[in-house]
Structure formats: C-alpha cells, structure tokens
C-alpha cells in the first residue's frame, strides 16, 4: 500500500507455522472427504449404512419417497423451494409462540415480528445473521428445534444443490439431476449428523458446555452479580461450523469461552468450516471422471484464500501507524506479539483471528472469533471482499462450489472463445442459456449488495443504526448487506441491525441472495445435463490445468472485483488512506 513510510510487519515464524499446518491439513482432508461425499451422493453404501440404513429407508417409506426416481431440474427446484418455504414458516411460528413452548427456563417472550421474519429468512438461507443476542432472545427450544434444525436443513439444501449441479455438468444427454429428497436425507444422515456428533464430542472434551440448565448467577470479586448463560452449546456449535451456518449460541459467537474454549477448538473450527467445501471440489473431480478438474477449481480457491489471508494478516500485524506517533510500538518482539489486538481474543492472537476471519468469510460461515470492525481498514476489507466475490473460496457448504461454477462458466465463455471454438466445459457447449442464467445470479447479488447499501446510506432511519460515520460507517452498512446477500451472516458490528429497516431489507437480501442464485444454478444443471458431452481433442480448451485456475482467478478479481471497487474505494480503502494521515473514525 502506498503512502506509508512505515515498514509493514513480516509474517512471524510462529504465524507461518500455524498457517502452513492449516494448509497441510486442508490438503490432506480434501481427498478422503471427496471420496466419501461421492459415495453418499451416488447412493452407494458407506460404513454408516449399517447404522443409519434402516432409518433412511424408514424416512422414505413414511414420506412416500421413491429413492430410485429422479427429478428434472424444475421438479428439483420446486421441491427445494417448498421445503425451504415450509420450514421457514414453521421457524417463524416457533419464535412468535416460544413463550407457550417447552424448554424456556428463562421465560423469554415472543420474538418481535420483524426480527422473527429476519431470523427466519436468515436461518433458512444458511445466512444465520443474528440481529439479536441468543441468550436473551431465544429459548432453548427455539435454539434447538428451530435454529439448530435449520443449521442442518439449510446446509443440506446447499450441498444438495451443488451435487445436483455437478450431476448436471457430468451427465450426458439426460433430463434428470437427482432426487432432492434423497439428497437431503442422505446428506443429513450420512454426513451432517455423524460429523456433528463426532465434532460435538471433541468440543465437549475440550471444555465446551452442553446442558439445559438455567443461567448461573455468580458473584464477582468486586461483589457484583453476574449472570452466566448456559445451554446446549457443543451440539449447536458442531453444526454451526460444519454447515457453515455461523449463528452462534451466544452473541459473542466463537469469541465466547464456552463456545470456543481453547486454541485447539479454534483450530478445529477453522478446519471444519472448510472441510465439506474442499471435499466437494474433489467430489466434483471424481464425478467428472477427471480429478484434475476438481483440483483446478480447488487451486483457484486456495490461491484466493491465501492471498486474502496474507493481506489480512500483514495488515493486522502491522497495526495502526498512529500508535507510533504516540510512542507505542506495535511491532512484534520477544516480549509482545505486536500488531492490532483491538477486538481480538488474546487466546487466539492475530494469526488465529485473521485465519478465522478469512475462513469464515471465504466460506459463508459467518461465525466470528474477533470483531471484524476493529480490524485495520485493509484487514477488515479482506472479509468484506471475500463475501463480495460471492463466497466462492470453498464457500458455504455447497454454495461455494455452485457459486464458483458461475465464474467457471463466465471464464470458459470469455476466454474459451480465444481458442476458436464455441466454449465448452466438460465437453459441453456453454451457450446463451447458461450465460443468461449465470448473469441473473451475478446481477441479483450485485443488485442486493449495492442497491440496498445505496438506499441505506441515504435513508435517515437506517443511518440511526450506525455507530460510526465517514468511510467506516459506509463499510458497516456495506458489510451488513454484503453479508446478508452472500448468506454469510457475520457482522462487522458497529451497526444496530435489529430495526425494522434492517430486519426486512436484510431478510430480503438473504432471500434473493440465496434463491435467485440457486434456481438459476439448478436451471443450468438441467440444461447442461441434456447436452451431449464430446470427448476432448487437441482443439479443446482445457479446464483442468493451472492456466485455467489462473484465468478463473483473473475473471473473479476483474468481474466481481470491479463491481465493488468503487464501493470499496470509498469505504475501507479511503479509511486506510485517511488513517495513514492520522485520522480515525
């Protein structure tokens, strides 16, 4: 970055080792996860079939599902939309009526209508934006039967859509892309539940709480009374992370010691956030009978992840130059880790905080272990940018892969022409229909993110929610709508989003950001499935090479980046430049 005469901090050895270890584990889990996912969604038997097989069959029998019959994309979308609509309504009703329902030891009252709408949208769309504090708003029943259910359901829907898209891409000359109900059931039974149980047990062993007890009242050393919230945290936590939901049990989310007790649980959380996303890329490669196709997508994702992570880390480690003028050094030394520690947990430090922030926004998770608002402007821009490009870096479970496929289609279409053939992906032509559907998805997201933000910044009612002004305030509002539209759910903080304006506009952003992407994606799946795949020849534009990964990165940065560059330049970039001149917001 220009303007600064001060040397930015290099990465400390400790940080390097932590990030390196993370990358190694990410590589190692990709293949086993992908192989397992392939088995689950091909309907093959897994080692869990002997345990859950009877349950799977029972569900099919009770619901009258024929697991062998497949659906066209229209039926698949219809089933997905009906399922989402019905479950959203049930959640809304549950919140409005929670005072009459069991497991409410604190006697929490009905949730306000606008907050209930916002929350119902938020959890149905895998966003999990929380405009409320869980411990003072939601009963245990609402948390477990309502919110936790959606943590599973919305994650399963996302994965199902990604699998349906992959089927559409790899199949040749067929009409169908799978059975939504079967995908939903198998995903939940064979993937989400077992992994959640396993993770929950590890979490509990690490000190996370799991109870239905009333809140504990303690007397502090100063003699003050303190209420300590309790609850079934570990079970919620596992799926919050695994399903890239991110909706915390407590308001402090993964910064709360009960929700993220140790550095080990923190590290485990960042691994689990990416686990399904990275596995899906391998599953894609395997199903397309060319694992390199999957690795090419994985490579582009990993590059963008590392680029964001390093930018964020370096910016945070460099801290705020204005401290220098006050004679305070924020450089790392033998006696202090240095950097910008505002809003970060000392248990995790800058490395684990920036890693968590990057991962949670790459992946549409939205869990946080530090306050993104307190990051340096550039450090805070990274999470914002990650969501803006559509959370295609591993992404929300399923959503990352299908979101990435929109950019793959655009890359193939723009650059593929340069080899002198109608662009092809996996042997199938990309034609106006696919381009149109991809553009609908991209446009819907840009319109929500920028449109609602533009409205909010000139709306006096909305501006009352702002805690800060100037470029930082702009970042706060942008982040709110970007996070909602991207179905991320993390908050920049500094913005009181529990107002009618934000509950409703964000709810709409979540809805559009989810379904105006998913339905076009399923339409692409249907359209691609019908096409006949041609075997590659010397004239084929290869999409399984590092060159393609590089191209994909370029298209993401230029197409998505340029859409948001004006907004970013007035938000975090301006704030950064102003900060270098000694002015803060």
């Amino acid at each position: 970055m220009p303007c600064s005469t001060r040397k930015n901090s290099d990465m400390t050895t400790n940080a390097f080792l932590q990030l390196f270890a993370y990358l190694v584990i990410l590589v190692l889990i990709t293949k086993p996860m992908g192989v397992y996912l392939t088995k689950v969604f091909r309907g093959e038997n897994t080692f869990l079939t002997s345990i859950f097989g009877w349950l799977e069959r029972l569900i099919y029998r009770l619901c009258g599902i024929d697991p062998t019959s497949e659906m066209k994309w229209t039926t698949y979308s219809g089933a997905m939309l009906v399922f989402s609509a019905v479950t959203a309504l049930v959640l809304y009703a549950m919140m409005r009526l929670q005072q009459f329902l069991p497991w409410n030891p604190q006697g929490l009252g009905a949730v306000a209508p606008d907050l209930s709408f916002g929350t119902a949208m938020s959890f149905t769309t895998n966003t999990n934006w929380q405009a409320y504090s869980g411990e003072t708003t939601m009963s245990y029943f609402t948390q477990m039967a309502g919110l936790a259910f959606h943590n599973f359901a919305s994650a399963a829907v996302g994965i199902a859509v990604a699998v349906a898209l992959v089927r559409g891409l790899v199949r040749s000359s067929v009409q169908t892309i799978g059975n939504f109900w079967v995908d939903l059931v198998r995903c939940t039974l064979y993937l989400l539940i077992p992994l959640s149980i396993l993770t929950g047990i590890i979490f509990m062993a690490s000190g996370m709480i799991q109870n239905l007890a009333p809140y504990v009242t303690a007397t502090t050393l100063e003699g003050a009374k303190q209420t300590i919230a309790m609850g079934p945290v570990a079970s919620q936590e596992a799926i919050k992370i695994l399903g890239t939901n991110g909706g915390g049990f407590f308001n402090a989310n993964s910064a709360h010691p009960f929700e993220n007790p140790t550095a080990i649980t923190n590290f485990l959380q960042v691994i689990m956030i990416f686990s399904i996303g990275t596995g899906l890329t391998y599953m894609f490669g395997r199903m397309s009978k060319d694992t390199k196709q999957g690795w090419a997508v994985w490579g582009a994702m990993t590059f963008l992840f590392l680029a964001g992570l390093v930018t964020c880390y370096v910016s945070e480690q460099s801290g705020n130059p204005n401290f220098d003028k006050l004679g305070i050094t924020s450089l790392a030394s033998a006696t202090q880790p240095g950097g910008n520690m505002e809003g970060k947990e000392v248990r995790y430090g800058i490395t684990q905080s920036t890693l968590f922030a990057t991962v949670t926004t790459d992946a549409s998770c939205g869990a946080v272990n530090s306050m993104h608002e307190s990051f340096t402007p550039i450090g805070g821009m990274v999470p914002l940018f990650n969501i803006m490009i559509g959370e295609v870096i591993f992404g929300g479970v399923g959503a990352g892969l299908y979101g990435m496929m929109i950019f793959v289609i655009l890359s193939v279409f723009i650059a593929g022409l340069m080899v002198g053939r109608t662009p092809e992906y996996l042997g199938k032509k990309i034609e106006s229909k696919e381009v149109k559907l991809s553009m609908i998805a991209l446009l819907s997201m840009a319109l929500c993110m920028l449109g609602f933000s533009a409205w909010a910044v000139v709306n006096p009612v909305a501006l009352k929610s702002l805690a800060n002004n100037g470029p930082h305030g702009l970042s706060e509002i942008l982040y709110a709508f970007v996070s909602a539209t991207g179905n991320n759910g993390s908050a920049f903080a500094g913005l009181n989003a529990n107002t009618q304006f934000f509950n409703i506009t964000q709810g709409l952003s979540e809805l559009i950001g989810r379904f105006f992407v998913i339905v076009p994606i399923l339409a692409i799946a249907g359209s691609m499935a019908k096409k006949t795949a041609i075997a590659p020849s010397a004239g084929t534009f290869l999409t399984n090479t590092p060159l393609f990964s590089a191209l994909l990165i370029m298209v993401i940065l230029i197409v998505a980046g340029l859409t948001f560059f004006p907004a970013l330049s007035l938000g975090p970039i301006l704030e950064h430049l102003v900060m270098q001149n000694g002015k803060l917001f």
Partner: protein
Amino acid sequence: MAKHEIHEQKKLFDPAIVNRAVVDALKKLDPRLLYKNPVMFVVEIGAALTTIAWIRDLAGMSHGDALFAGLITAWLWFTVLFATFAEAMAEGRGKAQADALRKTKTETMAKKIEKGGTTSVVNATMLRKGDVVLIEAGDIVPGDGDAIEGIASVDESAITGESAPVIRESGGDRCAVTGGTRVISDWLKVKITSNPGETFIDRMISLVEGAARQKTPNEIALTILLAGMTIIFLIAVVALFFFGQYLSTTISVVVLISLLVCLIPTTIGGLLSAIGIAGIDRVLQRNVLAMSGRAVEAAGDVNTLLLDKTGTITIGNRMATEFIPAPDITKEYLAQIVHLSSLADETPEGRSIVTLARDIVKELPADFIAAEKTFIPFSAQTRMSGVDVKHIGTDGSRAIRKGAVDAIEKISGRSGIPDNLQQAVTRIATSGGTPLAVAEDGKVLGIIHLKDVVKQGMRARFDQLRAMGIKTVMITGDNPLTAKAIAGEAGVDDFLAEATPETKMALIRKEQASGKLVAMTGDGTNDAPALAQADVGVAMNTGTMAAKEAANMVDLDSNPTKLIEVVEIGKQLLMTRGALTTFSIANDVAKYFAIIPAMFMAAFPELAALNIMNLHSPQSAILSAVIFNALIIIALVPLALKGIKYRPLGAAAVLRRNIVIYGLGGVIIPFIGIKAIDIIVSACGI
C-alpha cells in the same frame, strides 16, 4: 485466373468504402436501430444526457464546467460513432459487391415455351417456378433452373468471377444454370426452379449486403453477457452516487456517465457486429458464399471433416508410376509397346503413361512410327483399349491391348499371367493403386502401375487440422484396401470406403449423435440430403441446384479444398470475439485507477494515492479515460475486420498466447494510453 471486378481484393480502407461508411455510421445512430446493441445504446443515452448537461452549463443553468462537459459529450458521441462506423465499414465491402451484382440483374427478356410448344417473349420477372424457357447463344439466363434439353457453354463470370466458360447440359450433375449468367454457344431448354426475388443472385445480394443477417448463437450469448455486465456496472455507478452523497460529495452527471461508459464493455460491444460481418466477408473473399453467419460460426466448431478423396485429397487423376515387365520381356520393349498402346488415349491416365514411357525410351522405333495403326477405343464391355499395328511390308498385324487385369487375362488364353506379374498386381492393389495389364497378341507383356497421387502439402494440412482437434475422414468409392492405402499416404484420420449416399449419411448421423459437428463438401443431387444434414455443407457451384440449396455454403470456385480454409475463418472469427472481449474487460482496471481518485480527490485528498498514473488533474484524468475508451474502438477496427492472427496450434498454446496478448496486454495498454492522452490533454491546457 481472370477474376471479375466484383471479386477484386479491396484494400481494408478503400476510400470509396470509407466515405460511404461515414454516412452509414451517422444513419446508424438512430436509436431505433441502435437498441439492438445494448452496450452502445447505453452509451448513446449517456451521450444524450451529457449533451443536456452541457447545454445547461452553457446556459448558465447549473454550476458545471461547460468546456469539460462539452468535451466529454463530444467524445461520448465519438464513442458511439466509432462503433457504428466499424459496423458500417464491415458492411461496406459487402455493399460494394452487392452493387456490382445488382448491375447483372438488368432487364432480361425470356423466351418462354408455352404448353402448346409455341414460344413467346416475356419479361424475366414474369417467370414462375415450373416454366420452361429456351436460351440460345448470346442470351442471358433469365432465372435459376435445370437444363432439361440441350448442351451449351455458359459464361458464369457474373457470379463466380471465373471467365472461362463452363459446359451445362441436361441430365446429370451439370444441369444447373444460374440466372444472370450468359449462354455463349449452342442452346438449352431450362425448367425454371425459383420465383423472382428468390433466385441465387437475389440471395447473394441480400447476403453480402447483410440484409438477411441474423445474430449467430454465439453472438447472442456474448450480447447477453455484455448486457449483463453493463447492468452490473450501471448498478455500481448508481450506488457510487449514493455513497458519494453519504460522504457529502455530489458527483455530477457528466462524471458518473463518463465512469459508466468507461466501465461497460464498449470495445467489444462496439466491434461485435463488425467482427461477425467481416467473418462472412472474409469467406466471400475466398469466393465462398455463406448462406448465414451461423454457418461460418459453425465451421469454427467443426469436429469432423468429411473430404471426398477425388479432387480434394488426390489430384483426381491416377498417374502411371511404374512398368513391370514379364520375365522374358525387357523394360525398354514394354515401354515401347505401352507407349504405342496409349498414343490415342487422351485421358489423363493415358497421357501419364506416355510421359512415363518417354522417360524410359526417348522415341518410338522408326518402323513403329511408320506402321499403319488402327486404334481401338476403350469400351465398358471389353474394359480394354488398344491398337492394331500393321507394319509396312508385312501382312499380319499385331494386336496390342491394355486394360483391366482380369479382362486381359481372359484374352491371354492358356499362357495367363506370369507369377511375377501376379505378385506385382497384388502389391499394387494393396498399395491402393490400379494395375493395368498390357498384352501383345494374347501374350501378357507387363503391368502398368497407376497410382492415385495425393496432392502436395495435404499431409501437413491434416496435421494442422489434427492439432486443432479436427478429425478428417476421407470419403471414397474405392474398395477398403485401396482406401486404406491412400488414407495412410495422405495422413487422414479415418476413411469411408465404398461410400454411397446412404453410408455417408449414416456416418454424419453417427458423428452428430456423439455431439460432434460435421462439415462436408458435395456437388451431386444425391449429396443433397447429406449436405443438408451436415452442420456445415459446402456445395460446389458446378454442382446441381438441389445440392446448392441443401448446403449452407456454396463455393463459387468449386474447389473442395476450400472447406479447410472456411474452417479456419470460422475459428478466427470466434478467436477475434474472445480476444476483444477479454481485452475490453481487462481494460477496466486502468480506467478505475484514472476515474475513481478523480471523482473524490476534491473531498478526500488522500485518494490521490490511487492516482497511480499521476494524471494531471481530476478533469484531465476523466477526459483521458473517455478519450482512450473511444480511440481504442477505432484503433481496433482493422483487427476486427481482418481478424486476429490465426495459427493452427493446439488449444492450450493458442490460449496461452492470446491470454498474454489480449488479457495481460489489455490490463497494461490502457495505463500507458491514458497517461499519454493525459499528457497531451494537459498540454492543451484543459
């Protein structure tokens, strides 16, 4: 080869075409025409809005800078104008050709033969499908039709540009006559096959003029992409206005529109239709008439190329390459006899035998020359030809015969064909050649090896096609053994032997079923179904009307090798589109760095840090970006018209190359260009 003037290679910027294009470019500013191009339509609306802003500034109704608004307005109009000019230029060449073609459509009178057999003279425009006309030497053919009686030589230079007359006769594959051509000897009775306004020349005119032009599938997809990106950038720019408001900065309409126009993909948006038209035009310059842009585009996508052996892969005539004598015969004697047998054989094969014989023995012996010779022509019954030689002063005559091996074997009686010759026959047959036997008075003297000669450079051509991922299939009526040998020699990937229209059709269907696009050439009526079935069907102009109507391209030169060139043009067309799209989008990076700091530097001086090009002032920065954006369109017109350089390489190599030139180049060039324009603009004191 003498070419008609309409087919002259015109220079890219022929003054006549440029002048006409300037006028057409202005006409194309009509919004009712321009709305079909969403990107340029948005620019036009923007230009109209800045014009209003400029007038308000001039009138003092607002506080804007009238000079700045005026300059931006002017350059925005230039941007639109450059785009319409590019399209007009591309159409201009076609229009010039259409004008020349129209001249051939002068008033023609026709001698219509009425039902009773009487002839009446009617205007050619009165002729309808099914009418029969008489055309005599000197007459202009009044309409397209098939000859039903007679034979005549016809000057077809009006459409083909080839001045040598061609023979047209009733029946067979050479019966088609085209309206506008002229019969120069003899006469023909022709049954008219098209109504006025639907003739071949009419179709040609509307094609080259672009009147019948429809957007191709790929062009539609690209237009959707560009329209989508235009909307996205529109959202970004409008949102920016509100973000500015929030930060207490009001951005003027002129500046906002400047940013929008710079961001939306105007370069490709402005050149897209010119690229398509120029592609068809390039095909036309090869003397191939593409019935639609879709066909040219499909040519670039072709996966399988069906090529007729004769005329395309081999030079069409077999040539003698070797004489094999019987054990008791010298090579020289055999050469003499063979020479003698072929003296009257005027077929190319016969001439090649004479040529080879002369290489072995310079001249025939004097007594051979003096002898009285009775030539026996080839007949389908005997399947042999020959000569009876009666030497002067002798009574008996020697019967020399040359023909198919089994036919000669029949007349050789008990002596038959010697073993060494039998072996030679087998060897020749397996190598794809044709053996001919020569006998004197029933004694077999030797074998002539006639060989199908593969055209020079075909192997290299096929290697190139393979590198581009195109499979070549040779189609031949030969037996599989012969076909295999020639296929191997020519280097094609596959062959179809003993081909019939049915097997050809089956092959096309099979390839298409596996998702492949197939191209083929054909001329006969029985090729018509296959030509219609193929994705790219090129009919020879010498072929029948049925073939020409079924095909989506007609090669006026009737050169089957042309198909390969058409495929290359199709590829070049798609490459040019991709390259300019990539270039256009990559350009945006630099434009952002020019305009964003310029917009907000007054309110937030810190944003000067983003002014990495160190542009002179906010106004000069915005103006420079707008000027660059307009000039790049005009600078790329030649590239759009000529197409980007085409190299027959594999996809990976082509992609790497083009990404570096148009992707990376597209990021870097505008930084340099905008900076250079800024230096000039600021030197002019703006």
